């Protein structure tokens, strides 16, 4: 397999369109899955996908087409490029056409080969897990490691390379009818303590030795960081400028958008930052297609910190360059991490200790949008709802279906604790890099009881 950077150069050399963008992504993955204290599936995969975008400029505008392929055979490159160029010539002018991003200094690691992972990355984890399998609790879970190397090259001279390691482990433990969950995000598994995770799991299962049935209703609720992350991720995905400007998202308001609107009393800041320590992501944009938030023409654009909400006030919406120009808004590139700050130094135990009566959740599940106008989301509590009485966890409660809007939760939150790295349970297949505080909601809406355990 020829190196990724060479694919970029060969495809660009073949190109005859006015402008060309090439993105090559090499992915190396290892996975391990278990259920009922036994491994179920596993695997090692090595894959490459690459995309070419051909752009034909003319008096009517810029016509563009994109082709992606996993072919590693250089003999096939030309036919893919030619078809893409032919499609571009026949395409309608692109609405989001802009000049391509100009060249900057190439990445210093441009001509290095891709990084790989292997099954050995789980060596310590699998050994510790085997010990856990010998225990009394039934363990289920998944460990995944992916190393992606991306090369971006354009006919305007952009040459950028970035390597993104992404790992996660999650363990679901069951004891009788009780179920609990722990999880962690990581880059290379060297900072993951399975013993620590299993100890936390055991504590939570101990909490469930007493069970309490509670009806649907509004409860003072502490959302741990994982649950907060899942709700804030959905909010960020909704923060695209064009839809808000056109009046059909929850970030719209009569005659405009909610930019500048103060949500609540807490000075919370929700941001994405490619340089955030431990949660770094690509310092430049790559995308094989345009959508409401990003434009193909913006490939290579620098990513930078975006404060979606700053000190409790809606501050930014995503705009590719064309939409930013159209609406007179700042160009804003969506991020691949999400951090919520502005809380106290309190950890979740401190917050539990300050609670007279309320619920402590573990994770949320099957989150779906019910009403785009209010950003009402529904979903379920999962793997541990605990009753807090007089500052202590006194038992496990049945699961609930909730109906809540993350915008409203930010309006109503009365306390945020210390921000910590966390693994979002629901969205981790697409988005793992988050740091969130636990949030206290005085009246979290549990719409109905779920019999699921």
């Amino acid at each position, binding site marked *: *397999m020829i190196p990724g950077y060479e694919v970029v150069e060969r495809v660009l050399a073949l190109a005859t369109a006015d402008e060309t963008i090439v993105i090559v992504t090499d992915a190396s*993955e290892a996975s*391990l*899955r*278990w*259920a009922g204290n036994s*491994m*179920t*599936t*596993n*695997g*090692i*995969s*090595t*894959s490459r*996908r690459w995309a070419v975008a051909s752009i034909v400029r003319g008096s009517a505008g810029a016509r563009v*087409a*994109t082709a*992606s*392929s*996993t*072919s*590693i055979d250089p003999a096939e490159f030309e036919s893919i490029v030619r*078809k893409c160029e032919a*499609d571009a010539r026949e*395409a*309608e002018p*692109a*609405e989001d056409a802009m000049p391509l991003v100009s060249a900057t200094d190439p990445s210093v690691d441009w001509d290095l080969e891709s990084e790989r992972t292997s*099954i050995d990355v789980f060596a310590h984890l*699998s050994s510790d897990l*085997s010990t856990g*399998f010998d225990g009394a609790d039934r363990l*289920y*879970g998944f460990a*995944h490691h992916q190393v992606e190397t991306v090369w971006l090259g354009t006919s305007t001279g952009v040459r950028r390379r970035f390597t993104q390691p992404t790992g996660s482990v999650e363990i*679901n433990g069951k004891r009788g009818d009780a179920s609990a969950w722990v999880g962690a995000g990581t880059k290379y598994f060297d900072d993951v303590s399975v013993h620590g995770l299993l100890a936390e799991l055991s504590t939570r299962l101990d909490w469930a030795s007493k069970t309490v049935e509670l009806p649907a209703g509004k409860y003072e609720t502490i959302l741990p960081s994982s649950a907060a992350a899942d709700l804030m991720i959905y909010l960020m995905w909704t923060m695209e400028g064009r839809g808000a400007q*056109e009046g*059909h998202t929850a970030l719209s308001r009569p*005659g405009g958008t909610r930019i500048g609107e103060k949500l609540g009393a807490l000075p919370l800041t929700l941001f994405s930052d490619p340089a955030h320590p431990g949660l770094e992501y690509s310092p430049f944009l790559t995308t094989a*297609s*345009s*959508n409401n938030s990003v434009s193909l023409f913006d490939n290579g654009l620098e990513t930078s910190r975006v404060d979606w909400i700053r000190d409790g006030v809606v501050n930014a919406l995503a705009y590719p360059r064309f939409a930013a120009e159209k609406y007179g808004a700042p160009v804003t590139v969506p991020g691949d991490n999400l951090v919520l700050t502005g809380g106290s130094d309190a950890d979740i135990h401190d917050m539990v200790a300050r609670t007279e009566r309320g619920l402590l959740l573990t994770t949320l*599940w*099957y989150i*779906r949008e*019910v009403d*785009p106008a*209010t950003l*009402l989301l529904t979903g*379920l509590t*999962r793997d541990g709802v605990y009753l807090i009485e007089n500052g202590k966890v006194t038992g496990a409660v049945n*699961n609930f*279906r909730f109906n809540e809007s993350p915008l409203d939760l930010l309006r109503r939150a009365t306390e945020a604790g210390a921000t910590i790295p966390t693994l979002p349970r629901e969205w981790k*297949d697409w988005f793992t890099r988050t740091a969130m505080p636990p949030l206290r909601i005085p009246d979290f809406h549990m*719409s*109905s*009881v779920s*019999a*699921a355990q």
Partner: protein
Amino acid sequence: MSCAVTQLSDRHVDPEFLALPLRELADSALDAAQRGGASHADFRVHRLFSQSLNMRDGSVQSVVDGSEIGIAVRVVVDGTWGFASHSALTIESAAEAARTAVTVAKALRELNREVVQLAPEPIYRDATWVSAYDKDPFAVPTQEKVEVLGEYSSRLLSADGVDHVTASVMQVKEQTFYQDLAGSSITQQRVRVHPQLEGTAVDQSAGVFESMRTLAPPVSRGWEYLEANSTWNWDDELAQIPHWLAEKIKSPSVEPGPTDLVIDPTNLWLTIHESIGHATEYDRAIGYEAAYAGTSFATPDKLGTLQYGNPAMHVTADRTERHGLATVGYDDDGVAAQKWDLVRDGILVGYQLDRVFAPRMGLERSNGCSYADSPHHVPIQRMANVSLEPDPVVDRSVDDLIAAVDDGIYVVGDRSWSIDMQRYNFQFTGQRFFRIRNGRLEGQVRDVAYQATTTDFWGSMELVGGASTRRLGGAFNCGKAQPGQVAAVSHGCPAALFRGVNVLNTRSEAGQ
């Protein structure tokens, strides 16, 4: 040796795929696996062509052509699975992938406490199967597709009250070559398309908006599905959406509480998918998905006794239905496609299985539900086309069902969906909700969601529509497993009448 599966199409597998060194690659991988000590090994070449075409307000937002190809090797060594894949289609990479799969199995053997045993299956040597379609979407020029979608968009955009229109069509052609140590060698080709248009009405001064989309389901058909002579009546639907949308945005908010519902198949398919399809997956029922997709209340100890719903409830699983998205000739375990019962007379009577789970259930043969969505993913048990059967005696119409309701709602089209991790508690919304008064429709209401527990809901099904109301719904993107995999699946169902289902007002739920 057997070759019993019926061909659904007179089309053939693309010569370009057949020209690949499929058997040479397989022989290289299987030989290396056997040398490594594998008691079972299977090899797959998997190629996917895709095209995603997206338009917004009549302008093309993106056209992305994709192709993916790779090889996958799965082995059983000392009763433990090992899996490896590679993008390179060379004799060397095939052998290397097999050796890696053996290494993985040996490295993780200490974590395996359940010996892998596969249910036997007849050998299918040189079998070929192609899905039913007329026009290969990848043979249709992109510009022609843009013109069709653009013209459909313009019909909606030009209507009064429609401010924005999104349009998309996803097309997939999937080709696989499977060979195993036992001697089966199977080549298959499937085509599917999913077109969708949505109109949005905005009153910016009032800060109000509503949207409504087409109900044409994704299907295992070709480009003919989008053309004028399609089995879907595009002319009627595109003509009516502006009217329905205008009515919806002005409609009153629903009164919450227990409500009789007549549910159209365009909505009910998704409820079937979530509350029956997933609940009768055997891997979920025994905990394999406990940490992710979830388990099931319908556990194996309840087989034959669980009252799933009303005795009129008859649910089948079918991997042979023409134009079904989960229809195949053979699954990714090399098992021939079948049809069987999941729920009969309201009682749980079956599960969806692969070759590992069949023996664990005490069955001699898998019913063929193994599938991997990519060469880089291991096959797992996935959903067949799970369908609610219409009333076998009375061909009851939607109007007949509506006539049986004094005060209720007729639910049309799917939208939001969510269900818990044991498939008990669900909540669904829809595209349109028509008020029923004294057996007749009386305009739309809005802000509706219905929420229920699975067995209560199916127990409240009083009447099942007849065969003339049956429609095939479905999805391209059913998610399961880790690493995440998607699968396309269809669900056939008639309209049906449910009594006293809990209806929510979504604005009230949001505290508005």
